[in-house]
């Protein structure tokens, strides 16, 4: 495999890979490393990369001194673990010169056009995780079903908010509020039900675990800006859950 001499095409590839990684919830240093490894594999010259969770900037300086630079704004951020590992495979192949830039870009484009997983299984498995969580916190069968359905309901309501494009904060606010409201009603009729197991169980699947772990890893890798901004995101979402769940305890309401 020959080295890629067309820096415009190479830039396109590096930006696409970084963009897809950041959009599917990878760590920031992984996006930087992806571009760097690919460039080391097939590029020539010098490269500078700067990535934060919302933007990616790459500059290539060739040996004759001309510079090619590109910048990508990252607008949507979701979590797609499978996409991350597939991009990782493509990046590894490029850095070991098994495929060239054009092939890699094509593979990334196909990956980008793929719909982000089927919708109903995601919804159901999040709710199923809520049920499993309620078992972990000492629940039995009734708690499992309550957590399952309150998480499902919270997500369906959250979908409406997502369709009017609001921040994830409101989504998590709802995810906290719905189970407490349900338990306030159900707990009156069946006082023997373990309320805490249901409420905590149906909240936790929406806990920002990926963001939290990424924040730690980014900060440890020296990407302080990314670490702090991701930590802020995680705290915002967790606070949304907590505030939603505790609204019902406001004195005067209950």
């Amino acid at each position: 495999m020959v080295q890629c001499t067309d820096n415009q095409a190479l830039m396109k590839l590096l930006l696409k890979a970084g963009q897809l990684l950041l959009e599917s919830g990878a760590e920031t240093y992984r996006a930087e490393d992806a571009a760097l490894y690919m460039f080391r594999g097939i590029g020539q010259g010098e490269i500078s990369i700067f990535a934060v969770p919302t933007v990616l900037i790459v500059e290539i300086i060739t040996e004759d001194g001309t510079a090619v630079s590109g910048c990508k704004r990252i607008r949507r951020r979701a979590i797609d673990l499978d996409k991350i590992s597939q991009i990782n495979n493509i990046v590894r192949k490029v850095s070991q010169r098994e495929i060239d830039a054009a092939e890699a870009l094509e593979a990334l484009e196909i990956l980008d056009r793929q719909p982000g997983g089927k919708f109903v299984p995601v919804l159901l498995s999040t709710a199923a995780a809520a049920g499993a969580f309620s078992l972990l916190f000492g629940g039995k069968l009734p708690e499992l079903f309550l957590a399952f359905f309150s998480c499902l309901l919270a997500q369906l309501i959250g979908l409406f908010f997502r369709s009017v494009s609001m921040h994830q904060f409101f989504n998590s606010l709802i995810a906290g509020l719905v189970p407490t409201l349900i338990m306030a009603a159900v707990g009156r009729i069946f006082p023997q039900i373990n309320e805490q197991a249901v409420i905590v169980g149906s909240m936790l699947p929406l806990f920002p675990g990926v963001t939290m772990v990424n924040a730690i890893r980014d900060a440890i890798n020296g990407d302080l800006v990314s670490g702090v901004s991701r930590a802020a995101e995680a705290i915002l979402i967790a606070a949304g859950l907590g505030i939603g769940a505790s609204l019902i305890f406001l004195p005067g309401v209950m």
Partner: protein
Amino acid sequence: MNFIYIFLVCILVSFFIGISMHAKPWVSFLGGLVGGVGYLVYLICPSPRAGYLLSALVLTLLSEILARLCKMPSNNFLVLGIYPLVPGTALYQTMAYAVQGDYLKALEKGGEALVCIVLMTVSIALVPTVFRIVLGERKKRSRRRLQMNED
């Protein structure tokens, strides 16, 4: 018996979380095994603080090993495995007490949750670094630093 039940529940938790994050079923299942082992370590430890530190240590170690075996980012396994350990009850009680005006109890629970998260952070940060040193992957990192702009 109780341990087996909890182990299975942890596998279920991490498995369904994995599916909801678009991971492949076998990856989710491996993440579930990691989570189950991590939670068992947490249960065996005499104090909850030591439990959080050690279980996160085991979790991160297992996911680093699995990542190298499967040629996948270690985060995929780590994120799934860590979910059963999230101190959800403490976080929930913190907010519940705070809104009810019982600040002393809220601080107590909040401090507990914070210490747990900090201890897990230590493990998550420590293991990959040690792992890299052991495997001799240091060169890559230092070369990367030279070529890249700092934040």
